[in-house]
């Protein structure tokens, strides 16, 4: 089990990242992954530019905790989380999560779990430029609801 976390300004190559994640492990039967991209519209306004701020140190720490939690819940091999910071534009990749496992159910669930928790717990903030000026993106109740789905009753 390896868990790689990267917070970076640079773009990333999804194909190369998945190849590295699989790194010749023939026990892997499934790789589920997710790419988040900058959209040119948000809340009905056109978005030309986006700036992503984070809390260095806590960011990596919170992502490591989320991935470790996923590894206790599902039978997975390796996880990779890449999150970009700094200036981004529509069509840019923002985030990438990939999870490998023997069987597909585990990697699907773990990948979605990591994204849902990342959205509500990892300290990133988006500021976006619209025709009406710059604004900080507001947190969405639907993201809280998505993360709440994974809460265990035990």
């Amino acid at each position, binding site marked *: 089990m390896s868990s790689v976390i990267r917070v970076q300004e640079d773009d990333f190559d999804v194909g190369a990242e998945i190849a590295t994640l699989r790194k010749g492990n023939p026990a892997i039967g499934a790789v589920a992954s997710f790419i988040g991209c900058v959209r040119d519209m948000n809340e009905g306004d056109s978005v030309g530019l986006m700036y992503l701020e984070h*809390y260095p140190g*806590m960011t990596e*720490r919170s992502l490591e905790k989320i991935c470790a939690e996923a590894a206790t819940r599902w039978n997975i091999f390796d996880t990779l989380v890449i999150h970009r910071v700094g200036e981004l534009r529509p069509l840019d990749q*923002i985030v990438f999560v990939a999870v490998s496992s023997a069987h597909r159910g585990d990697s699907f669930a773990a990948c979605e779990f990591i994204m849902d928790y990342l959205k509500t717990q*990892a300290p*990133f*903030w988006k500021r976006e430029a619209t025709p009406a000026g710059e604004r900080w*993106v507001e*947190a969405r109740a639907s993201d809280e609801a998505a993360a709440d789905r994974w809460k265990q009753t035990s």
Partner: protein
Amino acid sequence: MTIQLVFLARLRERFGASRESLPYEADLRTVADILRVLRERGGNFAAELAPDRAFRVAVNQDVVALDHPVAAGDEVAIFPPVTGG
């Protein structure tokens, strides 16, 4: 003997600072005590940290509740709900 305050995103802009060293005093026992001291400054501090506003507090990079203890040397970050991903 200080507590290192960290302000992020919109709160960083509203408070006009990303970090601040708060002298540690004996009555700063919990996160709630720090918030009280900051609100007493009035202005944007009072407005943004009003009890009905949505913000989070992390002590030494773990999000905590208002009754979480603080000690000299701690890093206490205050920030809006996160919006990454």
